[in-house]
């Protein structure tokens, strides 16, 4: 366990040490590249302000992500039972993913104002697709023998879906969830960056405008911590709901 933690932390420690040494040796301006020690000091000094903004970002990301999960599950079920709709709509979803976030975020603000709605919509839009795709692919990859067995027992399409396809899609869905969770915080920050009253995005923008690279990096550090927290929560949920050794290894 200890060696696992050390292996995980070592690259970060080396990176930070290298960065610190580089700043000290080259005398790089802290306005351009502050050393990690300065970033940490700034984070500690501004902890109340950054904490408030982080909480706001986390609430928007959590709300958007939860809605996205529900929407992805419902849509995947609907598309599974209507293959023509899957053929028609999946290309539309694919195209929606090609729209750059940097263009989409200001448009959302323009259309829906500075409130919660545009940010939540942006998170849903960005995180929905990986989950939908992983679910649809999981349903399709269910071993045929499982479906045959249930059909021979007299099960209809819904029973086959509920008893075989849905549980078989679990591992793929968890992978999609993890990918989406990493996008959720980034998408929220992007939306806030385009226009908001609270949140890490607007905090980063204002710190940048004040030439406070240390605060920008402190906020980035917090956003990474938020993403890792979200991933940690997903890991705990996956472990708590695991059924059997295979599920536990997927978690």
């Amino acid at each position, binding site marked *: 366990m200890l060696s696992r933690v050390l292996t995980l932390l070592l690259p970060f420690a080396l990176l930070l040490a290298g960065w610190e040494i580089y700043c000290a040796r080259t005398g790089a301006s802290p306005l351009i590249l502050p050393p990690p020690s300065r970033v940490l000091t700034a984070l500690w000094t501004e902890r109340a302000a950054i904490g408030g903004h982080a909480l706001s970002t986390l609430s928007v990301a959590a709300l958007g992500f939860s809605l996205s999960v529900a929407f992805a599950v419902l849509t995947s079920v609907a598309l599974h039972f209507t293959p023509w709709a899957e053929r028609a709509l999946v290309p539309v979803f694919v195209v929606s993913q090609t729209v750059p976030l940097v263009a989409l975020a200001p448009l959302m603000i323009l259309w829906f104002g500075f409130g919660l709605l545009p940010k939540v919509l942006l998170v849903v839009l960005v995180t929905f697709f990986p989950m939908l795709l992983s679910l649809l692919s999981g349903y399709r990859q269910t071993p045929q*023998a499982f479906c*045959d067995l249930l059909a*021979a*027992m*007299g099960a209809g399409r819904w029973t086959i879906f509920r008893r075989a396809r849905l*549980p078989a899609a679990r591992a793929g869905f968890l992978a999609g969830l993890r990918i989406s969770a990493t996008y959720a915080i980034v998408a929220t920050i992007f939306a806030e960056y385009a226009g908001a009253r609270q949140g890490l995005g607007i905090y980063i923008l204002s710190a940048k405008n004040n030439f406070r690279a240390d605060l920008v990096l402190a906020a980035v550090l917090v956003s990474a911590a938020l993403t890792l927290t979200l991933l940690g929560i997903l890991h705990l949920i996956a472990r708590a709901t695991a059924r*059997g050794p295979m599920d536990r290894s997927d978690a």
Partner: protein
Amino acid sequence: MLELRGLTVSAPGRDLVQDLSLSLPDQGITALIGPSGCGKTSVLKWLAGILPVGLQAEGALHLDGRPIPRPHPALSYQPQSDALFPWLTIAENATLGLRVAGMGKREAQAKVVPLFDPFGLAGTEALFPAELSGGMRQRAAFLRTIVQDSRFVLLDEPFSALDAVTRIRMQRWLTDRLRERPRAVLMVTHDLHEATGLADRILVMAAAPGRIVADIPVPTPQVRRDEAAMAPLRETLKSLLLEETPT
């Protein structure tokens, strides 16, 4: 008695099985053997009501003289793999057929759990399939099939994935369980030793298109079926298969 009449299974451009008819009495093991690709599994799957997508079939199934739809509760099917759901415990897997048929969870568990001991599965109720050996998994799959209380059991190469020793043990185990709970079994197999060791009757299929070319009763009692006693029958079957297999 179960009767299959005039089954033709076609893939685009060719018949896999042509005008095949067979009947199964209410007890005993019938082995269906034949060269690869002769349509043995297609026949079994058609009976189970799960013909693969892309194949078309015509034929009629009668139970005690009356036509019946497929799938039908009088027939239970065990696929080639044990098909145990990895996310269900062994007890949950064993009750799957009963649950699908609409039985409540508690009632299904109450019916299945007492059978764990006679099936050599005591103590595995709460385990998951990945925690069991190949032989134990096969027993669990067979328990799932047997508790459905169907009159006819369709087994698709049930022991093909097992090593030689486990296979022999499982064959003996199967005959013992069927002696306790008599069922009519239609078993697809490639293994002539398995067919001559277990079956009361052997149906030989030829390929291209699949059809039954021999119906051979095996009157030798199970206890007297040693290697030497069954060797002549195996030779007969081997000759038949070689004759009917295109080179």
